[in-house]
């Protein structure tokens, strides 16, 4: 519906809305415009390119792991009642609640070389401090709730009778999941992937504490900001924003176009 109402309340709401939108848009637009001249140089810098590659790669791996581990949990949460379910619900919200550097410290304590779990992993050659594993672990911690919640919502929106019918027709629970639940929740799961990926690639606090190296783009940006100040970091800043926006918008466009009409 086109906004036609002229009541003072609606007008005031719209004006207040414009304020917050400006506040969201201006910093981003400003970064892009002021850095326009230096973008190419930034793109050509070895450090920038390496950090961006690390970020994309780690966020991709993170999304895959979240998909593999999060979707089954989302399925259980959406379909079954069991004692302790509310507790699990709260656990999933923890990463969204706590400061991300606190999450980083918590992960370091758990996975660090001197911890029992950390030494167990280092026995098979996996270390979480200053490795890509660490980057992924930090990203996974802060981003997996987005996958779980999106998939859970998608599953919940599907009529359970469909599964009952499928079962009565002879489909096992796995066949029912694969043929009915998954295709019908595909968009929700894709959205979950997108949000997870976006959250992972933008993570700084947890990553910088657990794995300062290999540098992800946000960590590299912070590095340059500390050593060279605003002037040196602005082009890299602009580049990162443009890249993130481009990928996000592109993926969102893909996710919004189902191949078959659903419902």
């Amino acid at each position: 519906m086109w906004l036609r109402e002229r009541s003072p309340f609606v007008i005031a709401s719209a004006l207040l809305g414009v304020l917050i939108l400006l506040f969201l848009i201006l910093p981003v637009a400003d970064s892009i415009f002021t850095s326009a001249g230096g973008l190419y140089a930034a793109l050509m810098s070895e450090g920038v390119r390496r950090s961006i590659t690390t970020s994309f790669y780690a966020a991709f791996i993170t999304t895959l792991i979240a998909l593999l581990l999060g979707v089954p949990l989302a399925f259980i949460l959406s379909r079954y009642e069991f004692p302790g379910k509310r507790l699990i619900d709260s656990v999933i919200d923890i990463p969204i609640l706590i400061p991300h550097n606190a999450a980083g410290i918590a992960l370091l304590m758990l996975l660090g070389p001197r911890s029992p779990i950390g030494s167990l992993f280092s026995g098979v050659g996996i270390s979480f401090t200053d490795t890509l594993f660490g980057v992924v672990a930090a990203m996974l911690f802060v981003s997996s709730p987005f996958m779980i919640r999106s998939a859970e919502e998608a599953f919940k929106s599907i009529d359970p009778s469909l599964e009952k019918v499928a079962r009565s027709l002879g489909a096992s629970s796995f066949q029912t999941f694969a043929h009915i639940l998954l295709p019908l929740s595909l968009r929700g799961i894709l959205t979950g992937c997108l949000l997870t990926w976006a959250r992972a690639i933008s993570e700084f606090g947890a990553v910088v504490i657990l794995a300062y190296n290999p540098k992800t783009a946000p960590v590299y940006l912070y590095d340059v900001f500390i050593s060279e100040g605003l002037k040196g970091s602005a082009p890299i800043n602009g580049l990162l924003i443009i890249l993130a926006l481009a990928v996000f918008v592109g993926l969102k466009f893909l996710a919004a176009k189902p191949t078959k009409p659903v419902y």
Partner: protein
Amino acid sequence: MSLELKGVCKEFGDFKVRDVNLAVGEGEYFVVLGPTGAGKTLLLELIAGFHRPDEGRVYIDGTDVTDEPPEKRRVGYVPQSYTLFPHMTVEENIGFGLKVRGVKKEERLKLVERLMDSMGISKLRGRLPMTLSGGERQRVAIARALAVNPRLLLLDEPLSALDPRTKEPIRRELRRVHEAFGVTVIHVTHDQLEALMLADRIGIMNDGRLVQVGEPREVFLNPKDEFVARFVGFENLFEGEVEAVEGGLARVRVGDLVIEAVGGGLGACLVGIRPEDVTVSLKPLSSSARNSFRGRVVEVEDMGALISLSVDVGIPFRALVTKRSFTDMGLRVGSEVYLTFKASSVRLIRAK
């Protein structure tokens, strides 16, 4: 194929099934009739295997299937809103059961083709469910359930979501499918008419229990208790006392009235008379009917083809008249009328 429930109990959320014992024979069309919330859907789901009973056993063809998952029971299930798979075409919907059972594509298509043909939905094959009408969806849902050659066909309120004009052909279709495929049907509904028209036998369900099972005629004529009587249309239901029995006729006192009924046995009972068995006239009728009372019309309710009258004859009575005779008699609230009914129209129900 046959179904047997032995002492089946289940509590699930707000719904209950309590100590249900039932045997349905091979090829029988059995209708479970009851009000909303009686536990009818839960009963179907227990048979289909979506729940495990808290107590009791479920047998199909003499085999105990209580611990078998739904996909092993070969029970066709058509839920209340037909729930076709929205991302599959009509053809894919019907073929789904065959596909997951590993039937080869060629054979599958042949079977699906035959079913679509038999249900008259061949031209819908490539359509998605959202483009179908209610009646078409129901045909597809039934075809989908039949595709796997089920031992039992479970129908949950199969006609209630259809508009009145679609109901009739689908009802006939259900009869036809039952005869053509020889499949045992368990059909759940709250609609008495549906039960009367389709059922070989019916079971009345109330508050989780099967309170009366029998042939429709038997259940509708001889309800066992007050609930069944009310549910099958004995709208005039009074507490009474049989004072005397003479020559097969009982004199029953209800308030200030004495009603004559066929039957016997002294003592307290419920007296039931269907409103359609009561004749309304302006003057006393000279007929063989044993019961005639004078009263005043207190309420008039237009029910379409018929008018339902509430008449005070000392006790509140309901009677049905056609619209035509309602107008001819010039009836309105306050009119003085005579209610007449035969002694054989009166049911005496022994209070428990």
